[in-house]
């Protein structure tokens, strides 16, 4: 069984199999756990790379990127050297060299590497994404948005790119365009509870009765798709309470929204009760107070 990444002290004794399993998990979940990956490499893998068989090349790539993230140029250089030796003409390896330049702040050198990769392979999406990442690193957010827009027109199914574009728009306070990005994702992924929840978050942030009602609908959908999505449950409670407490809201609409809010509040309360122990009773009280105060506001 793979060791938990929280058990730091056990990493000194971590076995090769556990180590490989953890790295695999990080790759599969696309998690940026660079510090941990570098630790695993140093504690376990460094002397044992030859035991990994063909997996070692993808591990070298993973460790290289983690090392660049942690400014461990020594480890990154070792990985790049090994990969270059095995794959001398690979554009994937050259991309890592470009990233190495980026990590050293040599953005012009990185640009040259990416140019040369794109000359031999016009459709290389990775290089285009690195260019956009460089624009972000240089704090050129409007330029990054323009480039990313061009990118998603060509690579419409790249969900990561849409999410990144959404984040960029949010950072520029352009919530309408951020919502549009998630709408694109929802078109092709209508059963993804996280997208519904994210869409609802954006609409709620925009404010105004229409947006909050839309938010409530999407929070409800997220909860229907995954009842463990606590954010969506809280969001449903918040948006329904908001609608119910609006001055123009009356009659059946008000009653319905109070009902939704109460249902969500009960669900939240139940979940916290299941988790309750002497350590988090103060959180339980905080949750209860919050639910009460927001509910009172909606009833009045």
């Amino acid at each position, binding site marked *: 069984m793979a060791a938990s990444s929280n058990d730091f002290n056990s990493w000194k004794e971590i076995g090769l199999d556990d180590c490989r399993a953890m790295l695999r998990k990080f790759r599969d979940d696309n998690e940026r756990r660079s510090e941990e990956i570098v630790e695993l490499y140093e504690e376990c893998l460094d002397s044992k790379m030859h035991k990994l068989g063909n997996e070692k090349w993808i591990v070298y790539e993973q460790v290289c990127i983690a090392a660049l993230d942690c400014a461990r140029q020594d480890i990154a250089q070792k990985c790049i050297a090994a990969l270059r030796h095995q794959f001398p003409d690979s554009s994937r390896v050259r991309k890592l060299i470009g990233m190495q330049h980026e990590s050293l702040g040599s953005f012009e050198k990185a640009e040259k590497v990416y140019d040369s990769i794109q000359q031999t392979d016009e459709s290389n999406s990775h290089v285009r994404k690195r260019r956009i990442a460089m624009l972000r690193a240089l704090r050129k957010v409007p330029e990054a948005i323009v480039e990313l827009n061009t990118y998603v027109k060509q690579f419409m199914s790249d969900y990561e790119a849409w999410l990144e574009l959404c984040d960029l728009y949010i950072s520029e306070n352009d919530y309408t365009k951020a919502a549009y990005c998630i709408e694109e994702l929802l078109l092709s992924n209508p059963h993804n509870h996280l997208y519904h929840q994210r869409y609802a978050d954006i609409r709620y942030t925009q404010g105004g009765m229409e947006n909050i009602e839309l938010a409530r609908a999407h929070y409800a959908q997220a909860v229907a798709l995954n009842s463990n999505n606590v954010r969506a449950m809280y969001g449903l409670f918040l948006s329904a309470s908001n609608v119910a407490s609006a001055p123009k809201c009356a009659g059946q609409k008000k009653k319905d929204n109070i009902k939704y809010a109460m249902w969500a509040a009960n669900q939240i309360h139940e*979940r916290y009760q299941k988790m309750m122990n002497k350590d988090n009773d103060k959180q339980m*009280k905080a949750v209860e107070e919050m639910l009460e105060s927001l509910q009172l506001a909606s009833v009045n």
Partner: protein
Amino acid sequence: MAEHFVLNRQSYCKILLHVFKYPHLSVNGLLLVQRQKGKDGKTFHIVDTVPLFHSTLGLTPMLEIALSQVDAYCRSRNLAIAGYYQANENYKDHSPNLIACRIIEKISENIGSDALLLMVENDKLASNVENACFTAYTVQDGKAKKVEGEKVQVQGNGTAGQIASALLCAKEHWQLVDFDSHLDDISLDWTNAHISVKISNAV
């Protein structure tokens, strides 16, 4: 508006742990005080922080939930929310952005007075001078204004930095829970009582 802020060791350490746990993301959190009942009543002692989020900071629903719960928590402990810290994603960027200004205005509305905005300067975190990595601002009419002079101090004559270093070496930052992590797993404690214990033991 208070004229001086003193961060106790616990607050200082928790801010650093939060920033170090997510070095590639923007992070933010709330500053909690017990008001100094001194001669002038103008010094705020920041005695604790609640780390809030490490992903998209600009969305309000979870922020509202968090503010509400932290508020309830504060009332039960005779504390108050007095401010907010933010560390930007970009290493060299420590200017208060639109998001920080909006959040401060929301907090100021909730607490009925000007909240303190503490921006963390990422490139000064390794400095030996503990308060070098903090810049204080107030926000008026949506614009952030730097607070002049040495308004933010860190308690402890250098010991806070030592404790923070020790915690980081022991990888305690991996154990830090912010409100985002709590929403992912509600069994996790956003008051970080486990970390507070380690900090008081180290003092």
